[in-house]
């Protein structure tokens, strides 16, 4: 009996180890492109032209260093080898306006997130707790909009924004982003689960409905607000197609559009593009690592996947 169990345990352990190894291999496939991006962002133009595939820039490779120490020709003699390590990053900012693009991305994402949280909370609270004619119909209508695919909506939304005279403006970028039926839905579900007795207590203390929402419901809803806020922020930060079609003035470009623009330039400076790409993807990765528990909760709730 015990031997059998021990055998079973041994088999289980081996299976667990095999699964771990396969998962590690998969993880390498997931991480490799990031390592490649960071490595490429540290190469000089000459190095990228000579060695596109290595993760470590030639001038930092051990054999090149040894050659150099022996006085042989090496990557350390190539032009640019003595420049500051982060030169591509500073160049991306100085010559590539990456700081402007980053600022724009941040501004759009913050404004969209703040407005969505505010208007979605109000609507969700009304749908959860207030009684009014047409509540069911309006809510169904709202839900139905979630099923419209973004690619189908691109041209229609452009026609509206252009009709409003907002093409190539800040408002033109953010206004469609304020629409968030999913947020209303998610918050409403959460509000429905808050015990009514708490709100009634607030009402007896003389709070208005807005007061109850602010002082009682919102503090209890912090987790769901953070989850929704993070997803909205990430969606807005990563959005590409909409700002691409609505903007033509580079000064308004978010980072995603700015990067795609660099790609079009003839003789594109790829190490510098990758420096911009690192700066554009790091903020979300950091945010993700800091707020992981809120996000993991949100994943299974969402049909929010971007394109």
């Amino acid at each position, binding site marked *: 009996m015990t031997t059998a169990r021990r055998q079973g345990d041994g088999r289980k352990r081996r299976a667990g180890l095999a699964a771990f190894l396969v998962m590690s291999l998969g993880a390498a496939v997931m991480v490799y492109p990031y390592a490649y*991006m960071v490595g490429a962002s540290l190469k000089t133009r000459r190095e990228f032209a000579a060695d596109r*595939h290595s993760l470590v820039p030639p001038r930092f490779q051990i054999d090149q260093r040894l050659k150099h120490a022996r006085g042989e020709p090496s990557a350390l003699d190539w032009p640019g080898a003595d420049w500051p390590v982060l030169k591509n990053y500073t160049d991306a900012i100085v010559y590539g306006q990456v700081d402007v693009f980053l600022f724009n991305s941040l501004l759009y994402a913050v404004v969209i997130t703040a407005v969505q949280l505010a208007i979605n909370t109000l609507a969700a609270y009304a749908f959860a707790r207030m009684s009014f004619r047409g509540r069911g119909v309006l809510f169904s209508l709202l839900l139905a909009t979630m099923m419209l695919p973004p690619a189908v909506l691109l041209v229609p939304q452009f026609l509206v924004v252009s009709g409003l005279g907002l093409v190539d403006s800040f408002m033109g970028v953010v206004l469609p982003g304020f629409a968030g039926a999913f947020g209303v839905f998610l918050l409403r579900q959460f509000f429905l689960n808050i015990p009514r007795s708490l709100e009634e207590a607030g009402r007896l203390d003389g709070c208005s409905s807005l007061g109850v929402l602010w002082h009682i419901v919102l503090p209890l809803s912090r987790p769901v607000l953070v989850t929704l806020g993070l997803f909205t922020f990430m969606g807005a930060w990563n959005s590409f197609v909409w700002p691409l079609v609505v903007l033509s003035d580079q000064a308004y470009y978010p980072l*995603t559009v700015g990067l795609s623009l660099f790609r079009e330039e003839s003789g594109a400076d790829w190490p510098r593009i990758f420096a911009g790409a690192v700066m554009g993807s790091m903020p979300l990765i950091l945010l993700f690592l800091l707020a992981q528990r809120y996000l993991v909760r949100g994943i299974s709730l969402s049909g929010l996947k971007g394109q």
Partner: protein
Amino acid sequence: MARGIGKERRQPVAYLYIAPALAVVLLFSFVSMGISFYVSLHQWDPFQGKGQFVGGANYARALTEPNSIFWLAVRNTLLYVVMAIIGVLGTSLPLALLCRRARYGQSLFRTLYFLPSITPMVVISLIWIWLLQRMGAIMDRSQTALLSIALVGIWQASGYNMLLFLAGLNEIPQEYYEAARVDGASRLQEFRHVTLPLLRNTLVFVTVMVIIGASQVFTQAYVMTRGGPQRSTEVMALQVFKNAFSYAGQMGYASAMAWLLFALLFVFILIQMRVFRSRRIYDESS
């Protein structure tokens, strides 16, 4: 939904609460769609904001034009969707099963596999332009270009869908497995008769989401191949985009195409609505 509605006093102030969200959402969904339908019946000049009525000519042009790029785009998109389904399901489900068995590092794996979901698709496309070159010129040949952008899409989506499968697997009560073990079921039988049937909802959900997501593929095709070589990566969303914003005076045609895309996706959207309704997706937030 109608909980206690009869007893409650009606509160007209509620309209003020819902007005901003409802106005923006409806404006950028049904109202927009309505306007684009109107535009699709015209030869539209975006600079004048008006056009000449042409009836169904834009639709007819897309559907019946000889050597129509529209049908080519439909075909390419369909191929892409098939590759995406095979690729995403073929990686994310096995990965989810493995992740649960892995002896160490389960939470680290979840984190790492999620990274592509929070990286801009533009950045991913820029990186893969170079990584794909290592695999030979698969991006530059018309036979394999579509596959190469599908690989990128699959790489991006598999981790996210793995997490969806993990969530689905976690909902399966452990007793079922114990019962199967008592009955002497092998691992394979366990998967076939316990895991798969109980994972059905997640499987349908993921498949439908992948179909809907993949049929809108745009960014890789735009950044990596621009629809080429020889139109081999010319997909629906890219065609709509090019006609609306790159070619002059084709806004009516582009609107018609957007509507046709909607019509093609409609069946899946209906399935999605059913799945969405049946899924108790809000339980976890409490």
